[in-house]
């Protein structure tokens, strides 16, 4: 018999404790692996080039609130920006283009944003990625062109069963109980192909149609005609590039001058989002700590399983010694069993972790529009296998040393 056969035989003979040890390690590793993967993918989702936006021109208020509202369709804008001021910023030498928008409406729990039509042609939701309505990409219909037309993000359309031709009346506000624009029926003309970004969970109407919605009062309706009085919630700004795609350094001067004014502020998402993670960093740490603790508990279980297996197997190991196995051989047997259980547990755990990301990612996608990939290789994937194997060997070290020191005669021979 070969050494590995003896190891496998022993593991099979104690199949219940072997299976329990492997499963407990797998569960701990799966938890750790999935938490790390979801955490890293969340970071990536929130920081992927500011979701195609170099800067956001927004009202005075919390920069984080502006980013969450403009990019993630959460929160509310803290105020308005004058259209004339937006045009002034647009004429800056460092600004390439802008897409103005107005937030604050909703439909069935999904945000309805009024936005400039250039959003569908020039806006890049990720570098080089434009919105698509092509059926081949998963889209339907077309971008809006008329006042009473709308397009829906892929996830919003899926959850609300929106198809081109379907109509709706937007709610004036984003909270339950806010009034509905009952006299303003808007028709969906397109469904955007999935993007894996929060835009999948939004509904868009033409910017100008906001000013014509009934119930906003004459002051707002006048904005449609008079640019002097017109207001917007904010605008996505594309900044000019210098060599090798580097953003024009003049953006900092522009930011300074806008922020010094009383009219608006310039928010750079890539500066704000890391601050969000520093705020919620402790939650991250707690979750990681719990996952780590579970993994360590699983390894403790492996230690107990090996120790109790050793107690059961003293006679077997003594018999192997009697058959010519050296102390090192029996120690090696125990270490190899530990190695096998920890490696199998870690491998199974990583596979389970990816399954959790796959299933959990679907739920998160449905709720936030953010896309999570089960195929994503996280830092945990790279380190967890060697680390768990190492810890498994450490857990197996004590039983292995006990096996090494096992007295043959004490455990085998009858006294005569």
């Amino acid at each position, binding site marked *: 018999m070969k050494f590995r056969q003896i190891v496998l035989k022993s593991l099979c003979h104690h199949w219940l404790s072997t299976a329990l040890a492997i499963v407990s390690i797998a569960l701990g590793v799966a938890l750790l692996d999935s938490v790390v993967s979801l955490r890293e993918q969340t970071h990536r989702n929130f920081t992927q080039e500011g979701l195609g936006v170099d800067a956001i021109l927004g009202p005075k208020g919390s920069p984080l609130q502006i980013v969450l509202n403009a990019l993630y369709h959460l929160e509310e804008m803290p105020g308005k920006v004058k259209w004339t001021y937006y045009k002034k910023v647009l004429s800056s030498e460092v600004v390439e283009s802008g897409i103005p928008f107005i937030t604050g409406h909703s439909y069935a729990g999904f945000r309805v944003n009024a936005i400039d039509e250039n959003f569908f042609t020039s806006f890049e939701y990720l570098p080089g990625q434009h919105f698509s309505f092509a059926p081949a990409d998963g889209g339907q219909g077309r971008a809006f062109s008329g006042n009473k037309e709308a397009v829906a993000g892929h996830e919003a359309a899926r959850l609300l069963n929106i198809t081109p031709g379907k109509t709706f009346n937007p709610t004036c506000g984003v909270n339950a109980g806010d009034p509905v624009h009952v006299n303003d029926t808007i028709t969906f003309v397109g469904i955007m192909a999935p993007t894996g970004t929060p835009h999948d969970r939004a509904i868009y109407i033409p910017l100008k149609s906001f000013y014509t919605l009934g119930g906003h009062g004459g002051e707002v309706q006048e904005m449609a005609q008079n640019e002097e009085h017109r207001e917007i919630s904010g605008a996505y700004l594309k900044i000019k590039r210098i060599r090798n795609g580097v953003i024009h350094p003049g953006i900092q001067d522009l930011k300074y001058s806008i922020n010094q004014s009383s009219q608006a502020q310039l928010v750079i998402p890539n500066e704000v989002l890391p601050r969000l993670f520093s705020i919620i960093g402790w939650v991250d740490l707690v979750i990681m700590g719990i996952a780590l603790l579970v993994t360590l508990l699983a390894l403790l279980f492996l230690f107990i399983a090996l120790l109790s297996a050793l107690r059961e197997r003293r006679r077997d190991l003594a018999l192997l010694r*009697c*058959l*010519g196995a*050296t*102390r090192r051989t029996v120690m090696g047997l125990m270490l190899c069993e530990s190695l096998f259980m920890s490696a199998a547990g870690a491998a199974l755990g990583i596979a389970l972790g990816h399954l959790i990301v796959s299933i959990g990612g679907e739920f998160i996608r449905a709720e936030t529009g953010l896309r999570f990939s089960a195929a994503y290789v996280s830092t945990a994937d790279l380190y967890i296998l060697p680390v768990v194997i190492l810890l498994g060997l450490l857990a197996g070290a004590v039983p292995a040393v006990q096996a090494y020191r096992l007295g043959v005669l004490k455990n085998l*021979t009858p*006294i005569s």
Partner: protein
Amino acid sequence: MIVKIKELLLEYRTGAGAFPVLEIPEWTIGAQEQVVIFGPSGSGKSTLLNIVAGLLPPTGGSVEVCGCELFGMSESLRDKFRGRNLSYIFQSFNLLQGYTALENVLIGATFSPGARPDRNQAMLLLERVGLAHRHHHYPSQMSIGEQQRVTIARALVKKPKLILADEPTGSLDPHHSGEVVRLLREACGEHNCALVVVSHETIIAREFERQIDFRQLNRAQADGGGK
């Protein structure tokens, strides 16, 4: 000579001083010789066997097995030496519980440097002890007598020069005892292997040409000591 013992001394040290257990001035066993050591329980027969197997270092003296000074080697070398040259049969608990009869035979050659565990040979040996049809059975599915027969097959699989059997029939009834000892003797004869059996049963002792009364061999016992 397969076993050559000179001035063997084993003492257990207690608070009251050294307590002699074994004291054997000289004792030899020839190649392929079959010997029975008989004597009362607790007289130190098994202890002698453990020393010859290299499992228990004596207090003093020389123990040569197959021409090698056993306790001149490191423990690891002694384990390997045992794996290559010796087989040891106990009264009971000889088999690994998680292994089938065939696997239990095969594992007998696993730790023998140079011996390659051969499935066909193991099957032949099981056939020799009349258990080929039970090769896939686990120890818990076999009687004590059958288990001892598997042990004999395992002892022979690595073609040892010496088999040490410590009360191999201790758990068997007289009918099966005789059967197992006869099988052991025949198999050792067929494989040119020396055999030392320790037993306190006179019925077993009568099966052997060379019978050694342990009380006469062990001077410590003769002097009124003993384990």
